[in-house]
Each structure stands twice: as C-alpha cells, then as structure tokens.
C-alpha cells in the first residue's frame, strides 16, 4: 500500500474511532446513511452492510470491497445492536473468506482418495441416492443457514420428499431455550430485547459468560458502568470467568445447582410474601409436570399446591444442593422481591446444555413472572444464542425434526394443511411423524443398515458435527467402514466432518452470497452478495434447489406442486421460468427475495409478522412482529406481550400472553423438582468436566482458526485445572495430560489459574480445537423434552501422559 493511501486510511480509522468517542454516553443510533458517510471514500472502494458472520448477537459491520475482494471491515454506526463497535472476532470477519485451503471443487471419495468431479456429476449422485431411497435420507444443518437457505431445505424435505429427517446443530445449543419459552408462554423466543441491558439495575448471568461469548452485548453493560451508572452484575456459574471478573457478586455453584437456586428464589418470594401478587393474579397460572408422561403442556396446579411443593426449597436446603451459601440465596430472594429495581437474567449454553434444560429455563422464567420482573425495559428473562441465525432460521423457519415454518408442528393436521396450501402441494404431502432429532439421526446413520440403522444418506450443510456431537466415537466415528452409508458435506474448509465425507461440496460463505439472519432479539437482518466465491464454490441454497430440480427431471412427484410446476419455480416479469437450478442463472433474479416473500406468509399465525424483503434492505434489521402502520410504514416491536409496545396486546390489558398454552392469555409459572445430574464423579472418574468456548474462536474454529491473529492469540485447546488439584496429582503448568471418560479420551496441555478458574474437582476444556476433540469424552444424555445433550457436566479423570496405560 502506498504511503498516501495508508495515511488516508489511518485518518479514516481515527475519524471512525473518534466519532465513536464523541457520540458520547448514549452512543446514539444514527440514520442508515450517516454511518456509511463517515467511512473512507476511495476510488474503487465500496461499502455495504452485513451482519457479522459469527455469534447470535448480530452486530452489523460495514464491508469494504475493492477489486472484487473484501479489504476492510468497520463497525456499523447505524446499527442499533452494536452502535459501531465490534469484538475481536467481528474485527477479523472479512478474513474468513481468504484462508489458503478454501474448498473450490466438488470432491468424490474413491477408496482413500478424493477425486474432483463436476457439479453436474455431484448433483446427479445426490439426486440418485435420494430418488432410490427418499425416506432414508437426512438433512443436517445449523443456525448458520441463512433464513432463505433453511426455508428452501424445509420445503424440499418436508414438502417435497414428505420426509421430516431434518435437524440443525442448534439442537445442541438452544433447543432447551425453545422448550422453556413454549412451556411458559406457549410461543418461542424472548419477549424483551437488548435494550434491557441498557436499563437493568441488576444483571444476573446464569451459567453464562457474555464477556467472552457475547462481548459486544456485555460491553453495553460495562459501558454504562464506565459512565458512572451502577449496575450490579451477579454471576452464577460453575467456574470463574472474565464475566466473574466484572461481577459484583460471584455465586459459584455445583453442576445442576441452578435448578435449586431458582427454586430457592421462588420459595423466598412466597415465604416472605414479596411476590408480585397483582401480576400473578392477572397474568399467570401455576403448572407442574404430569406424573405419568410429562409433556410441555404439563398440568394445572393451584397456587396452594405450588406453595406446598416449593416449601422444601429453603435457603439451607438449596445450599446443600447447589453449594451456594444460604445467605446468598436470601440476597437473590430479596432482590427479586423489590419492586423498585429492574432485573435482567441472561443465559445461553449453561442452562440449555443441561439434562434439566427445559426445567431450568422454565424455572428462571417463573422467577421473573412470580416477582413481576417482566415486560418493562430492564426487567426480562433473556436467552442468548450462539449462532448468527439460530433464532431466524432454526426457531422461526422451524428447521427442526418436529417443526414447520412459523411455529407450526408436523403433528397438527391443520398446521400441515396450512403449509401444503402455502406451498400449493397436494393434501397429505407432509408426513405427520416427527423426524429424527440430532442424536437419533446420527445413531441411525452410524448403525449398520442390517441392524436397523435406517438413515443411509446424510447431507450436512453449514456445520461440523464431526467436532460438535457429543460422544463422538459412538455418534460420528461409527460411520467408518459402513460402506452403504453416504455422507455429503457442503463446506468452505476441510473439517473433522469432511474427514469422513464421501462427497464434499465447496460452499460460498457470508458475503459471497445473498443472505438473511435472525439474531437473539428477534431481529431479522439482510445483506447482499458482495464478492464472488472462489473457484467453483456455490451457494448452499442453490445446491438444494439444483438437487430438487434433478429429482424433478427424474420424475419425483414430490418436486411438483399441485399444478405440476417445479416447487421452486421462479418466473420473470413475462411469466417465463428462470432456470435458477443452473448456477449461471441463479443470480438472474434475487432468489432470497422470492423465498423470503413466500416464507413471510407463514409468519402471522404466531404473531411473528415479518415485513416485505425490501424493508430489510433499508434497515439494520427489524425486530418482529413488524406491523404495517396506517401511513404505510413498518414498525418493529421491542417488547412483546407488553401493551405499551406490542400491537397485538388487547387495549387495557397491560400484559397479554396471547399464545398462552392455557388459552386464557396467561403465562405459566412452573414447578419442577430438583434432580441430580445424569453422571456424577465417582472413584474411577473423580472430576467434573465442563466444555465451552473462548473469546478468540467461534465454535469449532473452522473460520477463526484460519485467521492468523486469532489463532496466534489462542493457538490450542487446553484443560483448565485448579492449582491444588494439579499439585495433588503432581501435574505441572503446561504439562500434557489425558482426559479420560467412560466414552473416550483427549490429550491436552494443562493451564493452571488460566483465563477461567474452575474450583477444585472441576476441569474446563474449550471445544474449538479440531486436533483435541474433547467431545470424545462428553455425554450424550439429553433433556427429555428438548433432546438437547448436556455438554456441561460429566465424570472424567486426568492422567499424566507419561502414566497413560498403553493397551497391550
């Protein structure tokens, strides 16, 4: 770069940083064009908006493109989510496109080699396998699917093939949040929004480390403190983290202690008569699980019955169960009993990856409902998501084995009928039987066909189950040697999953394609393709449509609608079909717009109304329900169920839960008894293992491990260990040890008093490092409702590498 250009860009960077500083206390939301206006204007350099490709926070970036290449990234000042700021991952997001080893050609495994094949050959191979056995085909995706990509797969699988074996890896990260919302409000997703972080007096992080996992959101709180505001942060967790460092109070609990703590708070609210009687009387019911066959619906119980059941959860009993001192439980009870403060609860994987995931999610909602800390800015129970579109694509489009778009489920005839009508399909096209959830899907895929393993072909898009599934030896590596099983993987880089693939498809990534995401606060975001993908890499959505069309050509009846047209048919203004299944014509039209406009029809049943596509082009995302005003404009909703903001709440109600599972406009306050974890340390495996993430890497590290600065900052996974445990086992800092569980092993260096500090008897290992697969050790026990596995607790032992017994 010449020095003139460099100095120009330096001053542009200073202007950008300076304007963030000058924007002052409130970091005001600017008009869309103002954000762009302050970015450097150079010949050939163009700027456009996109959401960050990483976490569910959904920060917006401005992407600078020059000569067909992404050359700069700036925080988008016009974005309400991040107000121009980015974390270290977002700052490097442009580089994810340019790793040296991008996949660029379709590759077919032939014995121990991959051979390059054409796209036509690849699509034909896939279509033939599906045509021959459509019911033994499964599609596995993630919350990294864009909304149109997920919608296309839904239509292809459930509408076209009549096959519900589609599930996302979001099953592994937020399924328990979904069941918690459904059980409590009758409808999924948070009622509040990120504004709660700007207005709360108390922030409680339940098994959550937003300082590392959602850093921009957490900085909204630390930013308030730096301006002199008092925000009390209470960190409840099984180890100390960077969030603990910023916390006012740290409540270190035993695994599963969160369930006891939530019950303890409710006990105190009732016992001290400090619950919000008026809110509960007007807006809540009490509910308990059925004794025989528990369901998400549960059974109604009286307030008296609830009082009886909660009576035993005294602070002393909770201390026994959770390890948190009774005095601290009383402190929480007192805080929730106050009406003059605002309390926000935040959680993510700690409460979701839990064999009592649905229960603890429901209980924390219950704490907020019982205390009336609900529905006002700053008073909110809020779950966060790890993936950029876990909400938009998985929860709203419904890419889960039991779900249909817009909050529908396959088991309800009227819901299937709606979808068949929207899609113009023959009645009965959609199967009423839920497909396999993630753990079942991989069990069936890795079980020999002769033994009943009835998934024979699996297509994996936008995710890396070879690294993220629990108990990998059973659920993924079991595929080795099963010759009749065929794994198709669409990816951008080689991964643990491509290691066992039979066919690899090179995928376009992020701004190499059009896209839409939905973040953790119900915000739907849109971006346009800005650069071309490398080599022959192509859009995942195109792959789905091309396979569907190949099946259509082969005569598969499901790929035709009622009128005999291709189910993904797109016509031009003259009514002539555009052959979008041919990649050279895929961008002759905006396929995302067509798919989104079709999907939008599904969104009103559960009052998750979406605006037309073009409204999202103009905005930095809009939070649903988005409702058209009398003047024709579209208005988003920050607070659902609250009369002051939600247009669907009846006048005079103040709050209304209009999808209540008891059909009376009320939310459910649940009682669930505490139950111990499914596996606890014993003589053979005396330590707890908890797994998770780190600031520098995003999930399995496929993208961030290719960014040299991030990889250098955090080059390897490690095991965090308490100094006393290390001393007792004669283990030194940095020494290699082997973690062993009943399911597998993993070799790691030890980090004593590292970034996170687990208590005695507990280990923590991050899962981003594909050379150190900790999921060999984790447990596939899962929540009975959400089917989400528990990655946060299982029993292991630590063996010095020099003392590992080599099997004879």
């Amino acid at each position, binding site marked *: *770069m010449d020095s003139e250009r*460099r100095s120009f*860009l*330096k001053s*542009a*960077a*200073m202007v*950008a*940083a*300076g*304007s*963030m*500083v000058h924007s*002052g*206390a409130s970091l005001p939301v600017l008009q869309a064009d103002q954000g762009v206006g302050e*970015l450097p204007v150079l010949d050939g350099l163009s700027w456009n908006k996109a959401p960050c490709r990483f976490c569910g926070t959904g920060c917006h970036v401005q992407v600078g493109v020059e000569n067909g*290449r992404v*050359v*700069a*990234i*700036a*925080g988008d000042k016009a974005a309400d989510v991040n107000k121009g*700021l980015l974390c*270290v991952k*977002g*700052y*490097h997001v*442009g*580089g*994810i*496109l*340019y790793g*040296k*080893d*991008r*996949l660029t*050609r379709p590759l077919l495994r032939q014995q121990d*080699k*991959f*051979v*390059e094949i054409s796209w036509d050959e690849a699509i034909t191979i896939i279509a033939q396998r599906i045509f021959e056995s459509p019911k033994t085909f499964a599609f596995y995706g993630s919350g990294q699917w864009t909304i149109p990509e997920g919608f296309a797969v839904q239509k292809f699988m459930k509408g076209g093939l009549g096959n519900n074996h589609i599930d996302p890896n979001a099953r592994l990260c937020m399924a328990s949040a979904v069941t918690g919302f459904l059980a409590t409000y009758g409808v999924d997703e948070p009622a509040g929004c990120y504004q709660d972080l700007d207005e709360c007096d108390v922030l409680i992080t339940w098994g959550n480390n937003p300082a590392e996992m959602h850093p*921009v959101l957490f*900085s909204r709180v*630390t*930013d308030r*403190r*730096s301006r002199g505001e008092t925000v009390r942060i209470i960190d409840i967790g099984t180890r100390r983290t960077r969030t603990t460092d910023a916390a006012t109070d740290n409540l270190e609990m035993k695994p599963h202690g969160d369930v006891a703590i939530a019950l303890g708070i409710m006990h105190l609210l009732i016992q001290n008569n400090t619950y919000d009687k008026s809110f509960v009387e007007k807006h809540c019911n009490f509910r308990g699980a059925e004794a025989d066959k528990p369901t998400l619906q549960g059974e109604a119980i009286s307030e008296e019955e609830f009082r009886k059941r909660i009576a035993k959860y005294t602070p002393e009993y909770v201390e026994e169960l959770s390890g948190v001192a009774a005095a601290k439980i009383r402190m929480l009870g007192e805080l929730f009993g106050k009406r003059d403060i605002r309390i926000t609860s935040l959680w993510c994987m700690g409460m979701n990856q839990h064999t009592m995931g649905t229960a603890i999610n429901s209980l924390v909602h219950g704490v907020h409902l019982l205390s009336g800390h609900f529905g006002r800015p700053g008073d909110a129970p809020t779950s966060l998501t790890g993936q950029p579109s876990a909400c938009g694509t998985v929860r709203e489009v419904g890419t889960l084995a039991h779900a249909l778009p817009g909050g529908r489920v396959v088991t309800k005839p009227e819901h299937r009928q709606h979808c068949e009508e929207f899609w113009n399909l023959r009645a009965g096209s959609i199967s009423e039987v839920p497909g396999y959830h993630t753990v079942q899907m991989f069990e069936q895929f890795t079980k020999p066909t002769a033994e009943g393993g009835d998934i024979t072909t699996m297509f994996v898009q936008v995710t890396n189950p070879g690294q993220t599934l629990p108990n990998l030896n059973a659920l993924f590596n079991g595929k080795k040697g099963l010759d009749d099983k065929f794994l198709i993987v669409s990816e951008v*880089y*080689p*991964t643990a999953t*491509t290691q066992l693939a039979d066919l*690899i498809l090179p995928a376009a990534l992020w701004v190499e394609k059009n896209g839409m995401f939905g973040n953790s606060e119900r915000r739907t975001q849109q971006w346009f393709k800005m650069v071309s993908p*490398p*080599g022959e890499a192509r859009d995942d959505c195109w792959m789905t449509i091309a396979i569907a069309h190949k099946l259509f050509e082969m005569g598969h009846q499901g790929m035709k609608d009622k009128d005999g047209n291709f189910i993904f048919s797109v016509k031009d203004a003259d009514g002539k079909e555009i052959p979008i299944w041919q990649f050279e014509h895929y961008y002759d039209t905006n396929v995302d717009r067509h798919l989104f406009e079709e999907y939008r029809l599904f969104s009103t049943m559960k009052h998750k109304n979406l605006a037309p596509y073009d409204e999202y082009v103009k905005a930095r995302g809009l939070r649903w329900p988005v409702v058209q005003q009398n003047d024709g404009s579209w208005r988003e909703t920050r607070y659902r169920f609250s009369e002051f903001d939600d247009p669907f709440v009846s006048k005079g109600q103040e709050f209304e839960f209009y999808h209540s599972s008891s059909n009376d406009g009320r939310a459910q306050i649940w009682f669930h008894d505490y139950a111990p974890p499914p596996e606890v340390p014993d003589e053979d495996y005396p330590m707890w293992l908890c797994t998770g993430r780190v600031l520098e890497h995003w999930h399995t590290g496929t993208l961030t*491990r*290719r*960014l*040299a*600065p991030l990889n250098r*900052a955090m080059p390897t996974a490690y095991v965090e260990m308490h100094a006393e445990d290390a001393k007792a086992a004669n283990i030194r800092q940095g020494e290699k040890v082997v973690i062993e569980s009943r399911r597998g092993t993993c070799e790691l260096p030890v980090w004593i008093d590292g970034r996170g500090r687990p208590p005695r008897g507990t280990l923590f290992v991050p899962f981003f490092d594909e050379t150190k697969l900790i999921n060999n050790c984790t447990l596939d026990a899962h929540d009975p409702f959400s089917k989400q596995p528990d990655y946060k607790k299982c029993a292991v032992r630590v063996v010095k590498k020099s003392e590992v017994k080599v099997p004879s």
Partner: protein
Amino acid sequence: MYTLGCMFVKPQFHRMSSLFREANAVPISGLVVTFRSSVTEHVETVELLRDIPEIVIGDSVGSKLAIVVDSETQRRDQEIWNTVQHLPGVIDLAVAMVVFDENDPNRK
C-alpha cells in the same frame, strides 16, 4: 488443521488464484479504549500508550479514548492489542474500523 491435500489426485488447493490470498495482512485499526473512570484520571496509562510508536492517540471524551494502531507485522499488532487490553484502568477495547489487506502483494 485438517487438510485434504494428501488425498488429492490433483493438488488443486495449492493453486493460489487472486481470490485466494491469505487473510493475514497487517491491519490499520481505529480502536476505542474504555477506562474504568474518566480518561483524565489515567494519565500514566495514556503516557504508556503514547510510548508505543505504532499508536496514534486521538480524542477523548469521558472514559473513552480514540486510538489508531498501525503496525509492521501481524505479531506486533497482536502484541499491541494484548498490551492495551491489560494496561491499568482499561476495562474494554472495541474496534470501530479496521483495514486489513495492506500487505497484499498484488495491490498496486
């Protein structure tokens, strides 16, 4: 990192087209340093920042200070980032803008 290279019939992935340049360039970044209290109460830390030759100090308002980092190598960039994050009184470091392809050999 996993590699499929050894299994290729044709070593397709080693070819570097113009679109395949590595994302390891040295960035110029505009950053916002947030201090625990007003910047004026952290004069010593600001002096420490000023002593780092790659850093240009910009405006400050309240507890926030604008800086630009322009370093020669990625390693140095990372070192600076780590140093700034751990300076006394610094509670947050956020990015406002980054330009990251300066060492692109194909750029004019």
